């Protein structure tokens, strides 16, 4: 377990900014207790400093997880967000898409969100921005990247892709082996 290098921090924050924009400061400066990012076996964990200090006594090989895993660095140095980061992304997300009940399961099976399934969209969403997907009961289902801006989305035919799939709750079942 070690703190992130400057390069890694930059990559991570760039990625997070796509989803939560300036809200990223809320992740770092929390009113309750200080939180930090820690790297453990190429996974990035978001954890309170208190817990992080306790975990320091645990050996590198024996520590499996601490706090919340946000994602992992790929071998090429890119950062890949995991579904496990969803609670925090959902809390601070700038752009949101709500899918209708009939679009819920297709998305949870790993498909892109098509226009026909969209129930509601944030107004000023630009193209290729990170969005969090909710169902109509406001339960976050996953996140993705907008394929079109809100304005362009109106012109697309119903089967056209509106949001590219990045991660969804179904991965807890599908990807359990590779996710952790």
């Amino acid at each position, binding site marked *: 377990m070690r703190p992130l290098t400057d390069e890694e921090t930059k990559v991570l924050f760039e990625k997070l900014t796509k989803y939560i924009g300036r809200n990223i400061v809320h992740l770092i400066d929390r009113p309750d207790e200080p939180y930090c990012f820690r790297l453990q076996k190429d996974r990035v964990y978001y*954890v*309170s400093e*208190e*817990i992080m*200090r*306790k*975990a*320091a*006594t*645990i050996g590198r*090989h*024996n*520590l*499996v*997880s*601490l*706090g*919340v*895993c946000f994602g992992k660095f790929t071998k090429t140095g890119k950062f890949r967000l995991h579904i*496990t980061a969803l*609670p925090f992304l959902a809390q601070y997300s700038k752009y949101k898409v709500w899918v209708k009940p009939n679009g*819920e*399961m297709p998305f*949870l099976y790993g498909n892109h969100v098509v226009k026909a399934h969209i129930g509601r969209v944030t107004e000023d969403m630009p193209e290729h921005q990170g969005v969090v997907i909710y*169902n109509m009961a406001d*339960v*976050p*289902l996953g996140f993705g990247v907008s394929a079109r801006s809100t304005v362009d989305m109106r012109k697309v035919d119903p089967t056209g892709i509106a949001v590219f799939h990045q991660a969804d*709750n*179904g991965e*807890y*079942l599908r990807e*359990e*082996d590779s*996710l*952790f």
Partner: protein
Amino acid sequence: MGRRARNKQGAPLPLELENKIEGKVTKKLHDRLKHEAQRSRKQKLSAAKQNAKKPEQTKTNGKRKDNSVEPKKAKKIKAQLEEEEESDVEMVQVDGAPEDGWDNAPIESDEDMESMSDFDSSDDQESDAESASDEKVTQMPLSLLESDSDEDENANSDEDSDGDELADSASGSGGMESYDEFDMDSDEEPMTFRDMEKKSRLLDKERAEDEEMAALEVAGAGAVVEGEREVFQLPTEEQVAAEEETPLDLTQVQMRIQEIIRVLNNFAELREDGRSRSDYMAQLQRDMCFYYGYNEYLMEKLLQLFTVSEAVEFFEANEVGRPVTVRTNTLKTRRRDLAQALINRGVNLDPIGKWTKVGLTIFDAPVPIGATPEYMAGHYMIQAASSFLPVIALAPQENERVLDMSAAPGGKTTYCSALMKNTGLVVANDANRERQKALVANIHRLGVANAIVCNYDGREFPKIMGGFDRVLLDAPCSGTGVISKDASVKTNKGPEDFAMLTNLQKELLLSAIDSVSADSSTGGVIVYSTCSVTVEENEAVVNYALAKRPNICLVDTGLDFGRSGFVSFRGRSFHSSLSLTRRFYPHIHNMDGFFVAKFKKTSNKIQTGENEFTVPTGSGVKLKQKKKKRHH
């Protein structure tokens, strides 16, 4: 017919049977027992019948007389006698009409009303003519009611056809009667007096035949029952040896198990001369091993735990699964909302019981309960009801430090975290690397943010980290409480496994005790639990820890159900406070077999002579300070 009639009486099974074998028994066993019980019941019944034969008969005869010789019917009989030639069929037809007329009188047309009045009038006339004053009294009021307006019509009504009128009057009176009498009698109306007599004679004859048969049967049955009682004898050694070569079929073994249990329950009377109780037990054990598929060693252990009839229940309960239960993740939702969401998916559910506010039992679900969107969103965890118990006993508080020594797959860990509202720290340890993935996945899915997951042998624990407020040790065990989930336990656990496991459990429990800080203002609690029912893995381990660590004591688990732990077992006596531990059984509580013990640590100091590692870890505060220094 007599036979059938007797069977129809089908009285409920006598209570003594239920006492003898309580709980679920396989259907075949049950049928067999029922049969036996019925036989004995029959015996009693017929004995009683013979005693009460005469009074019963006179009674029924009296009743019949009452029915047949009712004063009201006298007139009807007369009428019938007069027109005997008329066939019964016709009678019925004629009879049917006025009855209908009566019933439907209010809605029938005027014509029908007229005909009705005709009957009435003719009735009156006839009764006048024949001066049967008795009936008149009873029938007058009704006829008066009807005939008030129709008097004139009566006068010029069809007096020309006497025969018809007579018939009408007869049936009319019948109708009246049926009105006066109970509805039941109306069906028998067409029956003539002679028929009645004939029939009653027939019935009497049949009853006599029945009784004869019954008497015969009693004699026969008694002989059979007594014979059977004496017939059951344990197989000789040669027979046993022969059986090993060519095993009996299951039903025979099943019957023998039942017989042995019956003998054992009433040993003094039913035993075979020259055979001791242990002979019976040995045979029972062999048969049960064969029937339920356990190995001898485990069967012996389990039979020691229960009385024979309770053991059968236990084994039967192990053959059927426990209900699927889920625990609401209070970090993300409430039970009411979750229940509603699942009901909307067509799931049939109910709260588990009064003892938990987060549990739901799933009866049936049209969707896979482990793959609903709610499950994926982390709103609930599929978790056996029994694994709620140690966490309820542990009762973690907010901002505490809790250690779960063998955490995978995380049901109890996440429950702890939910009770602590994601504050403080939960250290989830598991020695098995394969199971870590499920543990981490569940922790993340349920939104637990205060957990550290590590992969150590639990016995190393006080060295790695100590000074916890609470420690939960759900020890690795033989799994004799969860045979319904994993039937391989039946055969693959031998004495060496138990020796290994109990040894490990003792070491783990000592480690757990040493990892707790008695200085904790809120906690200082250790909970030891296993999903096993054997005494070696439970009471004996707890007793060992109490002896090794005088600075702990058992406290009440806070679970208001379950059986108390054994204070003594087969000549071994344990610490008296072991009655504070709790045992749960599949056949009683309908959850996995489980054991929960809760300790409270009173002091960090252990007497001298204890090994050195306990001293630094016991004083968790010291360790904490050291750690802090290292980091700042």
